[in-house]
């Protein structure tokens, strides 16, 4: 029997799972779309991971991170639930102990983490604007009739990226339509978009942060060669993209699940358990809290969302 540790990173767009062995080597990994339903996505994720996994591996720790970390943590009986900033930092420093800057652009948010000796010293997360995130790039790719996977390669072909107002999705979009109407070549527009993502990121999340080498770029968008190119160009520095860059959060939380092992064995067989959430608006006061009640196997286990704490 071998011990394994599962890390699950549930983002708004994609769900990532990684299983590590006792030496923290990656045994299995999987990347699937969340499709707006984290519960369903994680059930599928675990099912497929189990099929891939050698039979003699048993799971002794599960960690969850990402925007649905709490809910999924309950569902899979996680021994650790951590925010994605910490998870990303832990994952990255495992492979690159002297990393100074982590740039991360995901589906719906982006962050920057500064470290020193594997310790987070500063970080920032975008709060307001969706321009320059994966979701924005996908929607623009669709608008231009380009596969998102070809997006980066097309961008590299451009010699003359168009300038696109990068501050805000609304402006960027109207600017983009305008540029397309005027007749700029597609690759120049795509390159312009990639460039605007970088500029927007640096102006927004990266503002006032001292970006020092070594720099690592991760998150879904790090798979886009165009964006990587402009990061290198604008920062005038090497920007490392790990082949597992999209899995760093999941790896980080798996590592944490390992270090917080509680001796309890866990199962990947959750496809058949019933896990439901029921939302309702509480009408006891004018706060009208959205109460979310969580049921596992038809028994109520927890509720969230009550501001006064008296309602469950």
């Amino acid at each position, binding site marked *: 029997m071998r011990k394994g540790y599962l890390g699950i990173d549930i983002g708004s767009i994609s769900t990532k799972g990684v299983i590590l062995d006792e030496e923290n080597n990656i045994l299995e990994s999987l990347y699937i779309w969340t499709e707006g339903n984290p519960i369903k996505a994680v059930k599928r994720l675990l099912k497929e991971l189990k099929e891939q996994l050698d039979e003699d591996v048993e799971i002794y720790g599960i960690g969850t991170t990402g925007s649905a970390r709490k809910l999924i943590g309950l569902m899979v009986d996680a021994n650790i639930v951590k925010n994605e900033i910490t998870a990303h930092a832990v994952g990255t420093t495992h492979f690159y102990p002297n990393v100074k800057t982590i740039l991360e652009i995901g589906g719906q948010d982006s962050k920057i983490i500064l470290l020193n000796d594997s310790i987070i010293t500063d970080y920032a997360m975008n709060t307001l604007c969706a321009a320059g995130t994966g979701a924005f790039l996908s929607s623009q790719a669709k608008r231009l009739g380009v596969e998102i996977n070809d997006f980066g390669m097309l961008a590299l072909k451009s010699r003359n990226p168009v300038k696109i*107002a990068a*501050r805000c999705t609304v402006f960027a979009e*109207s600017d983009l339509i305008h540029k397309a109407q005027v007749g700029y070549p597609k690759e120049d527009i795509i390159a312009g978009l990639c460039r605007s993502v970088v500029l927007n990121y640096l102006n927004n999340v990266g*503002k006032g942060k001292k970006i020092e080498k070594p720099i690592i770029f991760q998150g879904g968008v790090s798979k886009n060669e165009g964006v990587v190119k402009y990061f290198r160009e604008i920062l005038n520095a090497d920007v490392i993209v790990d082949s597992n860059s999209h899995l760093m959060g999941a790896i980080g939380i798996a590592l944490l699940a390992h270090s917080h092992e509680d001796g309890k064995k866990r199962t990947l067989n959750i496809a058949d358990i019933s896990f439901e959430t029921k939302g309702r608006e509480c009408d006891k006061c004018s706060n009208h809290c959205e109460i979310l009640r969580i049921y596992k196997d038809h028994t109520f286990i927890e509720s969230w969302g009550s501001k006064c704490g008296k309602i469950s």
Partner: protein
Amino acid sequence: MDKVTIGIPRALHYYYYGTLWTSFLEELGFRVLVSPKTTKDILTSGCNLSNDEMCLSLKIYFGHVYTLESKCDYILVPRIDNYGVTEQTCTNFLGLFDMVQNFITTPLLTYNIDEAHQKHEMNEFIKLGLSLGKGKEQSKLAYIHSFKKWLKENKIRKKEESKKLNSQKIKILLVSHPYNIEDPYIGSEILKLLKNMNVEVIMAEAFISREGNKKALELSPNLYWKYNKELIGTIPLLQKQIDGILYVSSFPCALDSLVNELMLRKIKMPHLNLIVDEESGSAGMETRLESFIDILYEKREKAR
């Protein structure tokens, strides 16, 4: 030996006191270097130096300060807090000196207007002269001369602007801080568009008067912001001679957000409120201006 050069950022209070400063410093024998008109680069460096939530006008100011860095011996960054308890300025003007100090290495020249605490303009200018190694009398005279010159300039401006009131065209009163409407990246585009639409634009800033300030207090008794008071005071003075009012402010101007909203509610006459940020495209602006002007024309037709 080269003359000592003093840099002045062409932004914010430059549009009120530019003449006063230039004349004062030149009379004392200094070379004055005013930063060039706002360009895309100035705006970009300003944005990089500022916090996202700062108003566009302040971001532009930072950009101007930055272009002067190491091009002069001093940069003039005054702190203008108030001209009395009920004549306050914007909090950005209070913090300006300290904010700039935070990112610039060129030494700053400053003076502090805080009349609520007996810091008056003349004395502060004398102190400024003294700090530059000039005599007290000399500085005082330079101030008085410059002040007179400044007054005269404003008078001429008002006279010129008043002529427009006789025009037969559609007349719009443009209510906007001069540092916004006169800045190439905030107001110039609007002025250009209006010019093409063949309307007469009356600049409220040229009609500032004591009488207007009194009228402003009838509209808003508690208004304690000097520059806004001066601007809205022109509305009741000119209301009968104009067809509509155009408010232009920079995003997200703290004072305009309240005062202009109150005016929109209180002054019953056609109006348009434009808020400019660094991404405002002229396309959207043009449509809004056009439809506004159309309304004014229609109203005039009906009145006939």
